[in-house]
């Protein structure tokens, strides 16, 4: 029993991070039907913004060496502010890499490449400005919480529990907004059929911007939180999650917000179930799992069939 509980915690610990990453990723997909490859870079930015806002200083190797904000916010305040800054960057990315394509009615496939370009620019800009070194949010930022929780003999780090709780909260808030508000419903209409939505008087350009803004905010907050849990491993920090995030997205159902969280937890659990002797095959297990799900139920666990979007 203790082993099973530990397995569950291990899965949730990793899965919470995947879920957080995938939340914003899936929102843009639900509206545009394309993958935003710059999402990982915006996630990274969120982590750096959080680090700077809590009073961290830039290291030696970038153009901004030694930079430190004249104020320091508490973590709980820094996180949403960093999220908003990341949202602003996401809006700029939308403006440059997505909206011109939409204006011309281009093949959505192109957005894969333009967003990749935007991601490459962001990552290398980060390196140019603050260097390649890693940064971390100090241990103890959360006050006097214990480092790990022990429940019935099974252990989990407190910060992972917080990550999971916030992923759940964000999911709930997002669901309430989408299902319960006018703008949320308008967003759904745009994702169902942008042309009809336009005819119904919905400004789909505006809705797409809102989706990008929220997606950027989620990415920023996720970056800050993951940065709290593990160190910010340099400019490529978020890029590493891009591939796993893609898997999570498909597993949960492309464009499904609850699916993103469910997919994250399932992949996390699947990885945790790989025994130690086979731990080298961990990534193969999660992708093999994904592959099978695709063949059996291509729309993912909670997704609606969307055969024609690329």
């Amino acid at each position: 029993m203790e082993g099973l509980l530990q397995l569950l915690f291990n899965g949730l610990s990793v899965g919470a991070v995947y879920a957080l990453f995938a939340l914003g990723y899936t929102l843009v997909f639900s509206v545009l039907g394309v993958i935003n490859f710059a999402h990982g870079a915006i996630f990274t930015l969120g982590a750096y913004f959080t680090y700077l806002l809590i009073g961290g200083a830039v290291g030696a190797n970038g153009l901004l060496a030694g930079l430190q904000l004249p104020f320091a916010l508490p973590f709980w305040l820094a996180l949403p502010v960093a999220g908003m800054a990341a949202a602003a960057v996401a809006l700029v990315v939308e403006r440059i890499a997505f909206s011109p394509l939409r204006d011309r009615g281009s093949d959505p496939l192109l957005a894969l490449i333009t967003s990749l370009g935007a991601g490459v620019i962001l990552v290398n800009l980060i390196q140019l400005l603050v260097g390649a070194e890693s940064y971390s949010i100090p241990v103890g930022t959360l006050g006097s919480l214990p480092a790990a929780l022990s429940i019935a003999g099974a252990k989990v780090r407190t910060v992972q529990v917080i990550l999971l709780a916030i992923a759940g909260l964000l999911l709930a808030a997002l669901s309430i907004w989408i299902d319960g508000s006018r703008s949320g419903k308008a967003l759904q209409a745009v994702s169902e059929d942008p042309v009809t939505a336009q005819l119904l008087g919905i400004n789909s350009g505006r809705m797409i911007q809102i989706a990008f803004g929220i997606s950027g905010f989620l990415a920023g907050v996720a970056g800050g939180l993951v940065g709290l849990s593990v160190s910010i491993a340099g400019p490529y920090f978020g890029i590493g999650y891009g591939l796993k995030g893609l898997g999570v997205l498909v597993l949960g159902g492309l464009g499904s917000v609850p699916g993103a969280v469910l997919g994250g937890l399932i992949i996390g659990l699947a990885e945790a179930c790989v025994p130690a002797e086979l731990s080298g095959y961990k990534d193969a297990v999660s992708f093999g799992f994904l592959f099978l799900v695709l063949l059996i139920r291509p729309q993912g666990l909670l997704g609606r069939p969307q055969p024609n979007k690329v």
Partner: protein
Amino acid sequence: MDAGLLEQMLLGALLGLSVYLPLRCGQLSLATPGFFAIGGTVAALLSTRVPALAGSGSTYPITSVLLEMALAALLTGVLALGLGRVVLQLRGIYLAIATIALVEILRVVTLNLEFTGGALGIFGIPQPFDSAAGYAAFTLALLALICWLCDRLEKTRPGRAMAAIRDDELAAASQGINTADSKLLAFVLSALVAGITGVVAAHFLNSWNAKLGNFDASITTLAFVVFGGSRTWLGPVFGGLLLTALPELLRPVGDLRLIVFGAVILVGPLFFPQGVITPELFKTLKRIMRRPPTPAAQGERP
């Protein structure tokens, strides 16, 4: 510009063609790096472990390279035939992600297998050519051959069937085109091109490891095609040549080079939504070249 860079550009062009073949049939398959990695591993294993292939001269015999290419083609072809039947039921982004999953599974398995050298890979791969120029000439011939085959394909019935599927799969099927077979053919051809490219790349790079076929490579090779254009085989060739060379050509701008590179792949599709090389571009060029008119125009088939 040196022959080594030229060789890398040519390999990029070949990989671009490999992504282009299924895309021409409307299939967004990103399995190219996987088959590329298989080809490279075949070459690395055969050339370092089979003494009979080494020959007696100071350089590794080209016949052995051709043999490796044949074996790699066989292996990737059979694999693609089997996998293609399964994955080609998927469309659009689902196919793309399924193929990415395959590439990733292959990478992890290669990493874990004892005989592929684990993380370090296989090194000390023998050289069939004394210099990069030799590689470049060989690869150029290979590229020319594959371009010629692609051109033939575009003109013949299976190729036209592929174009029809891309434009409208349902309409194509109702005209009696066997869409499943056409898509499978494109997928297998793509795997063959990637596999033999891997063989050349393994020799050229002197060493081979699991990292060379990964997610990043999937996306980069897709960029070759989208940037260059996916309507004619010249598109991916152009995209592969240019985008492989660009980070090297941008060295003079120092720290800014990858930022400029990112800007180019960001801006390219905005200005050239069909890719840089399109059939319309040829028509325009032809119009310019045709005054004074040439008799060649008569020979064109509809």
